[in-house]
């Protein structure tokens, strides 16, 4: 299998040079490397430029509503554990309208991967402030510059108990492919925050800007992704401007394990027709001797 097998040939709606192209290629490459059968993969996305990504995969794809990729992605996985489920969306999806879903998905630890294509601006609405817009970024909705403290995805995720948190950069595609593979391989919820520059509406956080500011885990002196204290402190020191696997905790029980689903057959295979014996059991409490 190669990258092309995972492309449906639809030409993306993104601006030439958009960071999202690299994210799309990286998912396709990761799927090819992991040899995931096309029909066994489902990509679930939110709304915005990033949300279109599910439409370009030669796999099952569900383009949901703004902020809601995670509720759909989690239940798809819980309904059919044989699927590889990748949720994807933008910083508005993840850190504004869907923020609560992000935090609760982290807490649940369902075995899916979430890619946040973070460009720090609302592109599809034509240039509005995002919850991760840098203070001072001038947008159509903040002509004087954004004022609110930006959300810090790394500290937020680790604070909520993430079992896997990584950051990637569209311009570092090889690394991004490896991060996505590691995320998919991780048993539990993996969140990958990807700096994916918007070349049209964010003239501040450009490719060059990221090249200049982003450091690797190694450069930041963070050599053990299992070390939470170190992860938290480098995220703080770098103001989140780093890439690589920042935190990974193996052996953390997944939602499926906690809810006794791990050893069940996929839920879609459970027979629907109830037996008389089950009916007796379910109605026992309504009977007068129950």
């Amino acid at each position, binding site marked *: 299998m190669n990258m092309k097998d995972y492309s*449906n040939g639809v030409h993306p709606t993104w601006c030439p040079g958009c960071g999202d192209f690299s994210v799309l290629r990286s998912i396709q490459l990761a799927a090819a490397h992991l040899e995931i059968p096309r029909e066994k993969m489902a990509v679930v996305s939110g709304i915005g430029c990033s949300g279109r990504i599910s*439409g370009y995969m030669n796999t099952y794809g569900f383009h949901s509503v703004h902020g809601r990729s995670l509720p*759909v992605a989690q239940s798809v996985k819980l309904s059919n554990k044989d699927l590889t489920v990748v949720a994807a969306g933008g910083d508005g999806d993840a850190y504004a309208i869907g923020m609560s879903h992000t935090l609760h998905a982290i807490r649940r630890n369902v075995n899916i991967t979430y890619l946040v294509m973070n460009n720090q601006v609302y592109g599809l609405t034509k240039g509005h402030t995002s919850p991760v817009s840098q203070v001072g970024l001038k947008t159509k909705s903040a002509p004087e510059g954004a004022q609110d403290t930006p959300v810090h995805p790394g500290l937020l995720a680790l604070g909520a108990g993430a079992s896997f948190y990584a950051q990637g950069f569209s311009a570092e595609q090889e690394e991004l492919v490896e991060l996505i593979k590691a995320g998919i391989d991780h048993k539990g919820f993996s969140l990958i925050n990807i700096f994916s520059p918007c070349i049209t509406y964010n003239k501040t956080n450009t490719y060059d800007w990221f090249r200049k500011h982003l450091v690797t885990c190694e450069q930041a002196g963070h050599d053990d992704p299992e070390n939470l204290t170190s992860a938290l402190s480098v995220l703080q020191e770098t103001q989140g401007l780093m890439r690589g696997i920042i935190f990974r905790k193996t052996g953390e029980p997944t939602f499926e394990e906690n809810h006794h689903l791990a050893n069940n057959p996929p*839920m879609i295979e*459970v027979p629907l027709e109830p037996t008389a014996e089950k009916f007796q059991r379910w109605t026992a409490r309504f009977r007068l001797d129950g």
Partner: protein
Amino acid sequence: MSWKRTILIGGIQGEGVASTGINLMKALSGIGYYTYGERKFSSRIKGGNTHIMITISDEPVTCVTSNINIIMAFDHETIDENRHLLSEDGLMLADEKLGMEDAAIVSLPLTKLAKEHGSPLMKNTCAIGFLGKMLDIDRGVLEESIKRSYQRKGEKVVNENMLVLHGAYTTQVEKLEGRKGIPVLSQSKQEVMMLMGNDAIALGALMAGCRFVAAYPITPASDIMEIMSRVLPDEEGLMIQAEDEIAAVTMCIGASYAGVRSMTATSGPGLTLMMEGLGLAGMTETPLVVVDAQRSGPSTGMPTRNEQSDLAALYHAGHGEFPMIILSPSTIEECYELTIDAFNLAEEYQCPVILLSDFNLSLSPQTIEAIRYRQPDINRGVIAVEKDLMEDNEDAFERYALTETGISPRVFPGTKGGIHKVTGLEHTVTGRPSDRKGNRAKMMNKRNRKFASLQDQNSLSVEEREGKILCLTFGSNWGVLKTTVKDFGLKVDIAHIARIKPLPVDQLKKLFSRYSKIVIMEQNQRGQLAGIIKQELGFHDKIISLTKYDGEAFRTKDVAAQLERWCNE
């Protein structure tokens, strides 16, 4: 005519008033009586007044009576709030601990006996004892019922409760001597069950093969998620408590897309949040079952009071236009049957289905003839078979194929040859976004024609009583209406509607043409069902609204008075 007695048990919330009533109902049901319990409680955990009003009869009961025969009070408020409802020969009983100095009130040593033989909380058992004795119920029956409900708490608690019960049965209360109990039953005992609407809905869902429930707690729908959280793990299913109602409904859409029958249950405030999900299910043609147990609105409204005011919003639910079904059960039995139907219809028509309940239907326990086991018909709708699938396994399966019926074959992720796209955007036959006008019109028309075959299915139940006028209603009002016309001997034909959307227009027209006056009875201010019917059918000059919106269920004597007036006009 059948006889009826109504007992109201009231006290401080959190002290077991409702369970006392339910224990009594179970014991009575066990010896052949029919019971119906209407609960009143406040939106708080402990404190505040609560009561359960129980009507007992030799025939099925579907609502409480307007008057009360016995009030059993654990607090002052129970007497103050309800004594005006007492029948002429009615009796007020109160815990002597309350020190009620009122000649009309009989004080009983409820707390005293409870303390003597066990603990003060056993005053509930003590009350059951006095009531049982007064009603001439064999003590053994109550013993069994109390044993069952306390067995989990251990032998000591059971034994103490037995002593308290015995104490109540053997204590002589002068003012109660010589009072008649409830009439002895003549008919043979049927196998019965006692359940409330929410129980029946949960049971129906299980029977229909629902294996995934995502919900957010809300009164009066929470019982459904609670039951599912107990049962589903044993069925290799899952109840997931979502972070909000938006997540709950969207999770159900995901599960359903993946091929699992799923459901969420909520009430007005949650429903408002779920509008987004209804639209997504409508646009993506994903089956979805949502239970809406209505309560008083708007906003947080009165969370523990009855109302049927979500209907108008639901009928026009969501932005944009998409097909949706609204089913409206009016009895416990219908809660069970229509829930099974809801799952079939959702998959057959690939659209959201709302099961519209209300506070009183969802939360009023009732004795009914036992629901019998029958393998339900499970119709999963059109699902792609081998020949429909793409040999090359490319992303080109026509999930939204333009068929004559408007219904296109579904395929679940994981299926080879079925790869396609799903999107909340307008889309092509393979699910790719498209805003071309030709495609848009075709897709809108496709979705819109799905219900052609549903329109003819009967969804009205009519009971003819040589009436010149017809009274049509839905939900818990039906139980009140049915009882009203029977108890008051009214010559009014009555009907209830089980499917409000799509509205059975032809059936309604045919029915309405036979009457000069049609009363539409509903629990909201503006006559929402009447409004919908007028909008779809006309009949403006024939339709009159009978409404109530104070949070309390319709009462038979008020309904009778109003219907009589309209009959004689």
